[in-house]
C-alpha cells in the first residue's frame, strides 16, 4: 500500500517580531517591513507527522502552500526535511483571503494536484491564529477531519487518532481519506538534511494560479465573507500602585492595599 499524503504549510511573519509591528496612522493598515518570515511552527510538526507516516507505511509527501512567491522558502524547508514534491498556490488575487476562502483555494489546489489519502495541517498559524482552515478544508474536500491531534497510527487500514482536550484527551477512529491538524505534542520535527537542502534549492516548483482554481470573486478580498473593520494598538488602562520597599514592608503595604480594594 502506498499513501498519497499532503501537508499544508504557511510562510508566516516571525512571532518574535510581532511587537515591532506598527499601524500606518494614515491608512490604519499593518506595516510589516523588516519582519522576517518563517515556516509556521506547527506546520513543521505537520511535516514531521506526514514524513514519519510515509516512512512507516509507504507513500509520497506533497507540501502545498498558498502565498506570494517568497513563500517558496517555506516549501524549500519542507523539501529539505524530506517532502517529495511541493506546490505553490500563488496569485495576487489570493491576497487577503480569510479562513473560509483560504480553505476553498487550498482544497481546489489539492484537487488539481492529486488524490490524497491523508492531509496534514498545523493546528493554527501564529499570524492569524484562527485554527479554522483545517476543518474548513476538509469540508471543501468532502473528507472528515480531526483537530488538536497529538498522535496517529494506522490500524487495519483506519487511522487511530489521539486528540488533546482541555480536560485530557479523546481517541478517535477515522476512515481515509481524512484531514488532520496536529499540535505541538505530535512529535519533534526533524532537521533539514544536506542532500535535502541541495535538492530543495534546485527544485522546480509547481505553481497554480487563480485561473486554475476558478476563483469565483474578482479577488480574495471580495470573495471573503469576513472583513477587517479596523485595528487599534493595545494600551493598558489601570492606575498602578507600585511598592519598591524591602520585601517585608512592600508585601505589608500591598496586602493592606488589596484589602482596601476588596481583592482579599
Amino acid at each position, binding site marked *: 500500500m502506498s499513501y498519497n499524503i499532503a501537508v499544508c504549510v504557511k510562510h508566516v511573519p516571525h512571532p518574535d517580531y510581532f511587537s515591532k509591528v506598527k499601524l500606518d496612522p494614515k491608512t490604519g493598515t499593518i506595516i510589516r517591513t523588516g519582519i522576517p518570515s518563517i515556516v509556521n511552527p506547527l506546520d513543521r510538526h505537520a511535516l514531521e507527522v506526514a514524513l514519519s507516516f510515509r516512512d512507516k507505511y509507504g507513500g509520497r509527501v506533497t507540501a502545498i502552500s498558498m502565498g506570494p512567491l517568497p513563500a517558496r522558502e517555506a516549501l524549500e524547508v519542507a523539501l529539505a526535511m524530506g517532502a517529495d514534491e511541493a506546490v505553490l498556490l500563488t496569485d495576487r488575487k489570493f491576497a487577503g483571503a480569510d479562513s473560509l476562502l483560504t480553505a476553498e483555494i487550498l482544497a481546489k489546489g489539492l484537487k488539481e494536484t492529486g488524490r490524497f489519502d491523508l492531509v496534514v495541517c498545523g493546528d493554527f498559524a501564529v499570524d492569524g491564529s484562527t485554527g479554522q482552515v483545517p476543518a474548513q478544508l476538509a469540508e471543501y474536500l468532502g473528507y472528515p477531519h480531526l483537530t488538536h491531534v497529538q498522535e496517529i497510527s494506522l490500524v487495519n487500514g483506519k487511522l487511530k487518532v489521539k486528540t488533546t482536550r482541555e*480536560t485530557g484527551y479523546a481517541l478517535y477512529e477515522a476512515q481515509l481519506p481524512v484531514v488532520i491538524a496536529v499540535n505541538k505534542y505530535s512529535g519533534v520535527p526533524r532537521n533539514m538534511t544536506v542532500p535535502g537542502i541541495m535538492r530543495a534549492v534546485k527544485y522546480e516548483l509547481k505553481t497554480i494560479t487563480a485561473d486554475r482554481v476558478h476563483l469565483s470573486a474578482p479577488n480574495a478580498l471580495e470573495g471573503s465573507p469576513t472583513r477587517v473593520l479596523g*485595528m487599534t494598538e493595545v494600551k493598558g488602562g489601570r492606575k498602578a500602585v507600585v511598592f519598591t520597599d524591602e*520585601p517585608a514592608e512592600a508585601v505589608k503595604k500591598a496586602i493592606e492595599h*488589596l484589602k482596601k480594594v476588596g481583592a482579599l
Partner: protein
Amino acid sequence: MSSGAVCVFAEHFQGTVKKYSLEKINKARQIAAGLGAQTVVLVCGHRLDKVVRDLAGTGVTKVYAYDHPGLEMYQPLLYADLLAGWAREEKPEIMWFSSSSIGADLASRVAAKLETGLTAHCVDLDLEEIDGKKVVVHSLPGWGGNFMVKIVCPEKRPQMATVRSGICEPANISGKPSAEVINVPVNFNKELLKVRALEEVRDEAASGELETAEVVVAGGWGMRSAGSLDLLRQLAKTLKAEIGGTRPLVDCGWIEESRMIGVSGKTVSPRLFISVGASGQPHYTTGFDKAGVIVCINNDPAAPLFEMCDVGIVGDARRVLPELIAQLEAAL
C-alpha cells in the same frame, strides 16, 4: 421584518453547563435585545434532562436539545451536520461557539457548510450600524496581542464567532425554566461516523479549573530563573488559587500547556490575578487583562506589566514570595 435569532451552542460536562457557555448566553441576550430578536440555545449530548432544565432557566426564548446515545461524545461530522441543518432551517442571524477545543473545531466545519464568515477567539462583541444594517463587530487580539482587531461579516448569514471565556458575567440559572424546549429527533446517516469517537479520558493533572478560578497566580521567565515553581505552588495553596504561566514555564515542563495564559493559551478573568516574574508582553497580558485586580511582582522596575497592573511589588520573587505567603497566612 424581525431579525433571525441569536444562537449559542452550549457545552456541558456531567450535567453542568459550562460557565463560559453561560457567559455567552448572557451576552447573546444583550445583543438579541438590541436586535429585537430571540435568544436560542442549542445543546447536544445524551441524558440532557438537567442541562436542558438549567438552560431553559437562563432567560433564553428556546432551547433545542439533541439528545441521543450517539451524541454522548463529540462526533465532529455528526454534530456539524445537525447544527448546519438546524441553521439552514431556522436561519439565525448570529451563531456563537466557545473558543474551546470542541467549540472551535465544530464552528469551523459548520461555517464552511453554511459558507459564511467565522471570526475566531473574540473577546468582545457589539452591535454597530454599518450601511443601515445592525451588524456584530467582533473584537479579538491580533498580532500577538499587540493590536485589537475588529472584524465584521457584512453580507453572509449567520454571523458566526468563537468566543473566549471571561467576556462577561455568566447568565443566572433561575429555578423556573421559562424557555420553550424543543427535543429534536436525531436521525443520522452512518456515513457521518467515518470519523468516530472511541473514548474520552479526563486527566485531572492536565485540566484544573483555570478558566473559572476566582484567583489565579501565574509565573513567567523570572520564576524559571528562580529555579523552582515551589514558591508559586505554595502561594496558590495559600490563596486557593489555580496556577498558570507563560510559554517558558511550559517549555521547561513546569506547567502543562493547558495552563498557559495568553494569545495562544487560556484567557482568564479571575477576581484576583497575581503575576510573578513575567515582564508583561502583550501576547501574555491579553490572557488576563479583564481580571478584577492585577498584582505584578517583578525584580525589573521597568517591566511593562507595572504600567498595566493595579498593585506592583518590585523585588526578587525568591524573597518576595516567602514574605507574601507568610503574611497572607497570618492575615487570612
